[in-house]
Every structure is written in C-alpha cells, then in structure tokens.
C-alpha cells in the first residue's frame, strides 16, 4: 500500500501526527503555532524536561505532548525558520552545525561540526542527507552472531513497529527493500539523477543488487509539504520543507499539543537530589544568565558528544565521577562509521550537484561474509559533494595549487559513492572533559578515537568495492577520501550497569527518573544511517512511559491541579 494512492493510510498518519498539515502551505514555519506556544514558568514542575530537540528529543516531545504530558524541550541553538534562516549555499550554512569548541584526539581523530553535529531545533537531521534505512535484525546481536561488538538488550522485533510508524510520519520513499527484514516503503522511489544512474549501471554490470531509497523525502506532496525541487542542497537544510527533519515532522504537532520548545538554552547540568537519588530538573544558560527548570522527569537527548559531556558536568556529592558514571561507562564506546567516499571520472557530464545527494543504496555487503578475514560489513550509497566538500576530496589526494584548480575545473565529470562501514565499539573510544572551556566557562568535550584492525580492513574492502562499481560503470579514473560519518554510543543500553548507562527502556541505571533518548544509547551501529533508529527508539520510550501514565507524572499533575 502506498501513501498518496491510499487515502485511508494518509488519514491514519494525520490522526497520529498532524505536523505536515500544521505547516504553512507557503514555505517556512507556522509562526502562529510558535507565537501561541504554551509557556511554562520555571517554578512549574513540568512532567518532563527534554534536553535537545533533534531526532530523539523532538520525537519524544511530540509523543508525550500528545499523551497529555507537560513538556519543556530545551535546545542550545535557534528555533529555525527554513525560509528566512537557511540558505541555498554551502558556505552560508555554517550556523546549522555545532561549532562550540571541541577537541579531537586519538590515532584517528574524527572531525565534528558539519560532518555529524547539529545545533538548533531539528538537530543534525536538519543537515543529514536524508537516508533513513532500518537496522538489520543481525545488528541487535553481533556478539552472539559474529563474536564482535555487543548484543543489545532489545531485538529487531521490539523496534519494528516503531520503524513502521516513523517511516509513515517522515515519510520515507524507496523501492521494496530486499535486505535485513524485507519491507516496503509508504512512498514510491523518487526519479534519480546522473549520479544515481552511474551507481545503478555499475551495479548491474557486476550483478550487485541496488535499490533507490530509502530517503525521507516524499515523492509528491505530503500534507502542506511541497514536493522536492531537486535543488541538491539537502545537507544545507531543506528550504523547501520536502526533506524530513523533526523541525517539520514532529515539532509542529508537539506545539499543537502544548509542548514548549525553548531555543537558545544551553543546558549546563542535570540536577539530582543526592538524598532521594532522583532528578529534579536542569540548569541552563540563556543570554549568559543561569536558569533552572524543575521537572518530575528528565530526558537527555544531546547526541553522542554532548550527552556524555552533560552527564560528566553533572557530578554531585553522590556522583563524584559524573552522573550515572559509577561504573565508568559514561562517554565510552562512542562509534563512528568508516565512510570512505570514492569518486569516478566519466566522459559524460554527471553534474552530481543536481538532485538530492541521497538516491540509491546497496546493503548487499552489510553482514559478515565467512569468506572474508573481517567481521560485519558495509553499505554503499550515492553521495554528491558540493564544491567546497569536493575540494576536500581533491586536497586529500595531496593536490594543491594548479593541480587542485585543474581537478576542480573537471567537477562536472565526476560521480561519487560513499560507504558506511560498521566500525566496532571500543571502550577506549571515549568522550571526556577537556581543560578547555566554552563561553559559559564549562569544560568542552574531548573525543578520542582510534580504529581497530577489523575497522581498517572494512574501510579498505569498501573502497575496493566502490572502485569496482565505478569502473564497471565506465569510470576512467577514481579517487578516494578516507573519512568518517555519524556518531552513536557513549551512553549505551545494556542489561547491566557494568556494561552500559541505560537499560532496555533507556532509563539510566543510576537515576530512576532520568532517561537518555538519543543516538548515544546504541550499543552497535550496523552500516545504516542512524536517524530512523534514533527516532524509533525515542518513540518506543514514549510508548513505555505513556503506558504507565495513570501512575506516572501526568496523572500526578492532574491530581495536583484537580
């Protein structure tokens, strides 16, 4: 059943999440909804305060507001209006990224900022490409199945209903999916551009299956969201409102159900009462002044760098080494995917800047191949770097000066593929506090990262495969940049506090009313872009919380007011 051809399914989504219908029919954000937003007093003890309005925080806020909870969600960055705040320009999109200072170290330091870190309502999904694959069932038990990584305390089937819900709400377009748990998508796949044509042609030559999608851009209108105009600036924030991010997929519905989204609020500490052991709210900086928001429950959704940093900054007499860190698990097992990108030169003009960078994927090499010396695998997707990013690819080959200019003049002839390699979780890959401080005087994060041997083999194998595909499609030259993408882990979910920070319901082991609802809870990362999984996990937490609402915070609030 496809949305757009099936109105009853369309209506079902609208009954659950009206965001796409609350947006204006012209571009931008519904300002009236924002102006008339519920505003809580800091002295109010709200049902929940959520730290961060990205994939995890935005989804949780919408679900809980709909269930009648009083919700305040704080974000360090702005409350965006896509029409007036974002530009159709690579360099001008700098404000979308988390650019507060951070230190990177280790044998393979991972650049942050534009690569993987968002700031503002919508989070990193404002500037992600738009790929929204599901994880495979095998991802949830790599230790049992492959002898590497870690087993999750939940299985794929626990998450499947939420994958289905979110795929409808974003919504996701793509061909029928043959890999992992085979499934179909609510929207048919989009038409593709020259870059996608090259990938499909190369795969066909080699007998490798490839599929269009899964991309969180509706193929056609969706509610008041217009269709994609093939502008090619997905990574710079979608001015069109065609590509999904929580800013347009979940925040409008959250506002309509009474949530308060408080922007430009940098949370400095999660407050815990050392006597009761319970969280009581948060402190945050706004315009240089420290405020406090009281809450009956706290959910941290600041992603893999800022969430561990916040817990470490929230040390108290009871939690001397950082909140929830009695077992030294906070900030550990942070992962990035190995994301080499290979470009190939074609006689024809490819002009890869046209059309959305996310178009075609291949998950044929996702799982462990017993014939290979390494465990687990990689996926391959189209990517389409714009000129500044493409110049980085050229510089990575050692070119500068006239050589760099000459390569760049040839930009229109190159197609690009990117791999996502499942790099394994290591205890030593960690976020700690640096000696440096930010503008509020708070120590910044130091992210230490080094690859293991399996990781290096995967990166090399993925590069070889991309070169083969591009050559098969007719490329006469190839070049590869070794890089990383995405962030997950740092406060992983586990069966016991010895192995992680949160349990299967994403409640911290240490503090009974403190939850973590972002990518930092993932024990492994598969070779899939993490956004859909982070949202689905947050929706699952919300179901868990609201299932108990008659005895939970909302009911308590009702009793108090009633």
């Amino acid at each position, binding site marked *: 059943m496809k949305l757009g051809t099936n109105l009853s399914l369309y209506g079902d989504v609208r009954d659950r999440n009206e965001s796409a219908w609350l947006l204006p029919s012209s*571009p931008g954000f519904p300002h009236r909804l924002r102006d008339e937003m519920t505003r809580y007093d800091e002295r109010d003890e709200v049902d929940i305060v959520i730290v961060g309005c990205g994939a995890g925080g935005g989804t949780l806020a919408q679900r809980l507001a709909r269930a009648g909870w009083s919700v305040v969600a704080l974000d360090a960055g702005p409350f965006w209006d896509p*029409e007036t705040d*974002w*530009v*159709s*320009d*690579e*360099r*001008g999109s700098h404000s979308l*990224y*988390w*650019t507060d*200072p*951070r*230190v*990177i*170290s280790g044998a393979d330091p991972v*650049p942050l*900022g534009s690569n993987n*870190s968002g700031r503002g309502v919508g989070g990193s999904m404002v500037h992600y490409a738009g790929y929204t694959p599901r994880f495979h069932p095998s991802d949830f038990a790599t230790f049992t199945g492959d002898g590497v990584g870690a087993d999750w305390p939940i299985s794929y089937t626990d998450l499947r209903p939420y994958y289905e819900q979110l795929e409808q709400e974003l919504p996701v377009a793509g061909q029928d999916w043959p890999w992992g748990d085979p499934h179909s998508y609510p929207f048919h796949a989009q*038409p*593709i*551009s*020259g870059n996608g*044509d090259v990938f499909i042609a190369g795969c066909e030559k080699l007998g490798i299956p490839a599929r269009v999608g899964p991309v969180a851009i509706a193929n056609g209108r969706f509610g008041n969201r217009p269709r994609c*105009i*093939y*502008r*090619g600036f997905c990574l710079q924030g979608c*001015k*069109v409102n065609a590509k999904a991010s929580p800013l347009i997929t979940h925040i409008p519905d959250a506002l309509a159900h009474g949530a308060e989204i408080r922007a430009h609020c940098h949370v400095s500490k999660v407050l815990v009462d050392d006597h009761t052991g319970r969280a009581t709210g948060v402190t945050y900086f706004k315009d240089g002044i420290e405020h406090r928001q009281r809450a009956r429950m706290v959910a941290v959704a600041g992603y893999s760098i800022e969430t561990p940093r916040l817990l470490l900054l929230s040390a108290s007499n009871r939690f001397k080494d950082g909140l929830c860190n009695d077992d030294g698990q906070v900030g550990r097992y942070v992962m990035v995917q190995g994301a080499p990108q290979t470009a190939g030169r*074609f*006689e*024809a*003009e*490819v*002009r890869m*800047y046209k*059309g959305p960078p996310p178009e075609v994927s291949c998950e044929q090499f996702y799982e462990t191949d017993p014939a290979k010396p390494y465990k687990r695998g990689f996926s391959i997707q189209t990517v389409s770097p714009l*000129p*500044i990013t*493409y*110049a*980085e690819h050229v*510089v990575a080959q050692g070119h*500068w*000066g*006239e*050589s*760099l*200019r*000459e*390569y760049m*003049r*040839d930009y*229109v*002839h190159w197609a690009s593929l990117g791999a996502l390699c499942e790099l394994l979780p290591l205890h030593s890959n960690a976020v700690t506090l640096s000696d440096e401080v930010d503008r509020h005087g708070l120590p910044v994060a*130091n992210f230490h990262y080094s690859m293991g041997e399996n990781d290096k083999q995967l990166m090399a194998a993925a590069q070889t495969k991309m070169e083969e595909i591009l050559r098969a499609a007719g490329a*006469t*030259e190839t070049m590869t940049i070794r890089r990383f993408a995405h962030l997950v882990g740092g406060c992983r979910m586990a069966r016991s506090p010895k192995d992680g920070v949160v349990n299967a319901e994403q409640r911290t082991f240490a503090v009974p009313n403190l939850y973590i609802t972002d990518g930092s809870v993932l024990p492994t990362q598969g070779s899939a872009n993490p956004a859909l999984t982070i949202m689905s996990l947050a929706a699952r937490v919300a179901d868990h919380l609201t299932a108990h609402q008659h005895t939970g915070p909302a009911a308590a609030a009702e009793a108090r007011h009633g």
Partner: protein
Amino acid sequence: MNPSVVFIADRNRGRTPGSSPPRFPGFDVLNEVDRWDAVTAGVVLARLTPSPELSFFTGVEQATAEALCDQLLAQHEEPRIPVAALIDVRLATGETDGWHYADMPEDAQAWRQTLAFLDNDAKRQGGTSLSQLGQQQQAALVQAVQELDAQSWHGLPATHVWSLWTRYACTAFYSHPWAWNEIGFPGPAYPRGYKNMGLDAREKFEVADAANTDPVPWTRRAEAAKRRQAAAVTGESS
C-alpha cells in the same frame, strides 16, 4: 531587482579567477541572481565585496596569509578571489569548524603561529618574509610543509597544519561565484531547482564543458615537475 544587486552582479559578469581560457565559456552564475531567494542572494553577493580593511590579521600576517593562499590556490594573477580577506572575517568572528586537533592550538591562534613559522622559514631561505620570496621559493616552502606529512613542523604535526590551511582556503575560494563560473557549478538553486536530470543533461542556464580534459595525466606530470623544482630551490639555498 534591488539596484545595488544589479550593480554588484554587473561588475562581476562572467568572471573567473586568473586569465586562463574558461572551460565553460560564457557561463555566469550571476545571470540567475534574480531567481535566487533573497536571503541566499544577500549571503552570496556579500562575498563579492569583502572589506579590504582586515581586522584579525596584522599587516605582516596579512601579507604572509595572502602569499600562502595564492600558493595553495594557484592565484598568480588578477582577478583574484580575496581568499585571505574571507578567512580574516571568519577568524575575527571566531567562526571555526567546531573542533580542533588536540595537538594544535585553537584555529585563530594556530593561524597566527603558522604564519609566523612560514616567515621564519622564509628568513632561512634568505628572505625577510614569505611574501618577499620569489614564486618558486614560496612554492618550495609550502611544498616542504606538505611533504613532512605526520612529522613535526615547528612543533606542530605538519599534516594538521596542512588541514587547517587547506580547509579555510578552499572554503573561501569555492564559496565565491567566480570559482563557480570556473567549474561550471550554478550555485544557489532555490526556489528554481533543477529539471533535467541524467548524464549530459543540462538546464538552459548550464553551459557544456568545452575542454573535457581528464585532470589526472596533466597533474601527474605537473606535480612531478613541481617536486623537482622544489628540490632544486631547496638544494640551492642549503
């Protein structure tokens, strides 16, 4: 359209940096400026008129930064994209990439230090500063930093210094409409978008590549020659 926009656009008609014959003859991204949204147009056109009064670099640093950026981007003749001025704006406002290597100072400090180091190297070559050396000597000095790779250059890992310089320089250069004219990239695309997808498919406003030269064989030869030249220059002075 706003008259000042017309004025800026007219003064920049069809320009590419330097004087090489263009690969995309007649291509001018600014022809489409009235089809860009106002916010984007404002941001992009501002790059065409950066203030010549720099505020982060000192005069000495500015001269060295300009010489370095001219080398990194082979801007050896007018018209030049004002790369150092565009970098100055970022450093003055503290607009970093949101991270720095643990073995490097934060970006603004790292720029000041490394520009001073370049001048030190130039003094060893018999000059007073990088900008006072001849083109070939400048190129040899820059090349020497790149070739150190992971080794230390004045106490900093050369590869991280190289990353700092090239990130800032390429971001400035390839954000400029003249550079887009040179590479056939039409720049902003909202609310216009694209309609003609596929290999060799073009919009009316896109111009076909007139040369279609594979850069790989040429750069291989040019870079080998550059290395020989650098070795000769360094050999002479030592």
